[in-house]
């Protein structure tokens, strides 16, 4: 007599007997008799016995309870994952099982809902970025950047990619992993240690040194220091003059108030969709943005694309996946990427989020993020022993604080002890800026929260 289980409806002796009889098998073991004897596992797996949901839930809630999160521990961390408020309506839509328990819309007639939502995501994201084509998501910002570097090298037939040194560490590490098998040489472009922006002299010399082999420049705007690149137009002109592509990484929230990458000449825009209604979730799932300015590049890009069409009889508008001949399930080893499963549900979150905030709400959000981060930087700047912001360049949402007397990792750890997470240490990767940490301030932070941060920092620095 077997014991019933809520997920296993046929786990019942009589049903199993009936099914075995139908398939002409004497036992369940008989169904596995083709597995060579020596390969059969003859013992029970050494993992704990199953439990009902009440017990598993209680236990996991206790485990998770050890995590320190707001409001007990305030979060002023950014770097590519940002604390933002998620409207309840976003969670409501994301919890629709019709969306979250479906898979890739291989049969479009029965999957129009997800297809239209993804098409709308693509449309809104294109306009926000100033791009012509946006795919329906990548794994995260970093893999999107890695794929962009590969695409640039492929379409240009060139082997060098320049990157601004002022990009996030995670992105750089992933770009290295993605680029290495193609033999792409990655060359850093310095930043101005005063403004925090890209150093055009360094760019010029790197372009010259590569001697016509530059496939692309990758930079982030705002960069890892939170600094808005004031010389981005010049940098992109120089790369274009050398025959390379300009790839720009963005935090989409910044585009509420800042110029879009298409507007200043980017050929490819990548970024992190997480701030658009997706929880931080200790690293994922997040959502990579990948868009191109030129429809020609669309044929070389990775990822799924949704197109608008009609029914065969022409009576209704309809949506389906397009340009699938780029993809692995058709093109196999000649595909533009191996990506299959993506982050569709989170593109839906972003579409919902952007729709809710809308034209005016999104702009307001940007203004509030600007104001809150500048307010915090000013308050921190009043402390002794710090320089805030460290750089003179304009900033959005995030800023860098230099410590005159303390080591950055120590400040980070001491703040954590005081119920504040912030000041992610930058020193290790940017030795030229001295002891410094990064702070992210958004609309979730009140002046009282910022006061708590300033007090804690004051005790530490």
């Amino acid at each position, binding site marked *: 007599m077997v014991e019933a289980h809520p997920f296993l409806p046929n786990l019942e002796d009589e049903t199993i007997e009936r099914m075995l009889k139908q398939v002409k098998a004497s036992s369940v073991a008989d169904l596995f008799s*083709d597995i060579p004897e020596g390969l059969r596992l003859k013992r029970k797996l050494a993992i704990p016995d199953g439990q009902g*949901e009440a017990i598993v839930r209680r236990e996991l809630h206790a485990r998770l309870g050890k995590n320190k999160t707001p409001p007990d521990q305030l979060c002023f961390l950014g770097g590519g994952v940002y604390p933002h408020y998620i409207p309840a*309506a976003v969670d409501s839509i994301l919890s629709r099982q019709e969306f979250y328990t479906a898979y890739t819309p291989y049969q479009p007639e*029965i999957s129009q809902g997800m297809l239209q939502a993804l098409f709308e995501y693509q449309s809104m994201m294109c306009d926000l970025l100033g791009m012509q084509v946006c795919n329906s998501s990548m794994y995260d910002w970093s893999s999107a950047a890695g794929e962009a570097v590969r695409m640039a090298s492929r379409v240009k037939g060139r082997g060098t990619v320049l990157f601004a040194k002022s990009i996030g560490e995670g992105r750089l590490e992933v770009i290295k992993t993605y680029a290495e098998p193609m033999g792409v040489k990655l060359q850093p472009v310095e930043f101005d240690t005063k403004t925090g922006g890209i150093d055009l002299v360094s760019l010029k010399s790197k372009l010259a040194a590569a001697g016509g082999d530059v496939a692309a420049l990758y930079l982030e705007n705002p960069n890892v220091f939170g600094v808005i690149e004031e010389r981005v137009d010049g940098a992109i002109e120089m790369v274009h003059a050398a025959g390379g592509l300009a790839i720009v990484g963005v935090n989409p929230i910044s585009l509420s108030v800042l110029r879009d990458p298409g507007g200043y000449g980017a050929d490819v825009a990548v970024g992190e969709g997480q701030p658009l209604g997706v929880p931080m979730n200790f690293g994922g799932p997040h959502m990579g943005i990948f868009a191109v300015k030129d429809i020609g590049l669309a044929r070389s890009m990775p990822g799924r694309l949704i197109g608008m069409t009609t029914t065969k009889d022409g009576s209704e508008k309809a949506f389906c996946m397009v340009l699938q001949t780029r993809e692995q399930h058709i093109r196999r080893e000649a595909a533009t990427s191996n990506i299959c*499963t993506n982050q569709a549900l989170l593109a839906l979150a972003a579409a919902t989020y952007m729709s809710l905030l809308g034209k005016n709400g999104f702009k307001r959000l940007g203004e509030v993020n600007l104001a809150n981060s500048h307010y915090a930087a000013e308050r921190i700047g009043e402390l002794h022993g710090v320089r805030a912001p460290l750089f003179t360049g304009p900033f959005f949402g995030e800023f860098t604080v230099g410590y005159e007397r303390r080591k950055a990792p120590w400040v980070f750890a001491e703040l954590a002890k005081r119920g504040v997470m912030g000041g992610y240490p930058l020193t290790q990767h940017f030795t030229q800026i001295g002891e410094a940490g990064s702070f992210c301030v958004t609309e979730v932070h009140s002046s009282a929260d910022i006061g708590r941060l300033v007090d804690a920092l004051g005790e530490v620095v």
Partner: protein
Amino acid sequence: MDDAPSQKPRRRFRQAFWDEPLLSEIGRKGRLGFIVPEDPKIKEWAKAKGGQPLVPQALRRSGDTPLPELSELQVLRHFNRLSQMNFSVETGMYPLGSCTMKYNPKVSEAIASSPKMREAHPLQHDSTVQGLLQVFYELSGMLCEITGMKRFALSTAAGAQGEFAGVLMIRKYLRDNGRGDRKEILVADSAHGTNPASAAMAGFEVVKVPSDESGLVKIEAVKAKLTPRTAGMMLTVPNTLGLFEPDVSEISKAVHDAGGMMYYDGANMNALLGKARPGDMGFDVVHLNLHKTFATPHGGGGPGAGPVGASGELEDYLPVPMVEKSGEEYRLDYARPKSIGRLKGFYANSAILLRAYSYIRLLGADGLDNVSSLAVLGANYLLSKLNTQGYSIPVGGGIRRKHEAIVSVRGGHGGAGKIAKALLDYGVHSPTVYFPLTVEEALMIEPTETETIESLDDYAEVLNSLFEKLKAGELEDEPKNTSVGRIDEVKASHPLTLKVKW
């Protein structure tokens, strides 16, 4: 209801249809769906600045933000209506082969929705996320036990990324051991498209190994392709035809003897839980799709998670970071000099890992064993119910199918495609069609263990009746009960419309 077992197939489905406009077509000036929080003190502070801009005008966006203007209810209605035009596992049977569309436990969703999960930032100090790191440490151990691997890295975001990591590990290992000149990866012709694509991304040349007429990769076929340039082989067991590869141990040995490494595509692991382990078959590196075997939701296309496991030889090459335990403390370890590096900007798809852990705890050792038993029993049962006049079983000879069954629709002429579309009219999803490429008119059916015997019966009945209709020439312009009728996919590419303007 009378109790006659099978009369005619049930046809009780008409998918919702809303003539739902695009967001760009609705809305009105001045509306919004969310109020951004503003702190009065900071507002005052900004005002006191006397309009001094925080960002130079030249760096600002000119003109309006290109987004719609909708009320909160308008947004909800829009997306709720769209959701009603989307078929899903909780709506009906979704036997998409190789995708393992099983039930996704609600309690795992409830657990993952804890603010203690949602609001954890990936850069926060290890000391502040001990509970979560403990879960990941244990999950890694459980996946090792299930697969027979030495160590698991959890950071890769999906199966394909796991594959990419795995072949990169093989590449780096071979280089470190003086075998860096090996450039060829063997891939079976029946493999998932991601296999050759991943190998190519990692800089390998793909060498196709033909399956024999029974759909199996035979040792002789592998040996014929082994050369001093062989870096390794990627193999799916059971394969995409649902067949366990009986030569797998010999293949592993031959590839190893030739100086290559063995990669296990774990997409079909649902067939083997507690029954057999890739580690025991000689595989050196393994990926698992947590959104398949371990019941995390597919999200309409994603997210998933694709952890990678390694044998002792390849352990040091796993992607970073890894969760380490010292004493009672857990931490993320990036300092692994031989590692292939990072594939994800921040730790992992943690909220997916948490759901997979929850699933394993809900089932336990016996439960997982039952999962594969019933998945395999269900696939074979459904297969046995199909009319062999209509559906041939093209490969495998007398070998039992595992978790999925491939049939070929007799008669050619796009019959598989027509049947797939017609199935949608019965409130069930179609199988994967025209895959694997080695089978003509293929339907690849993976019902999973969470379907009742009644739905298996129903699905078989519908398939059998549809073949009759196909034969009679009655399947031409299906589906008719879905939100929209047959879509013009050619027109979708000519002209291409990938966005609309606001």
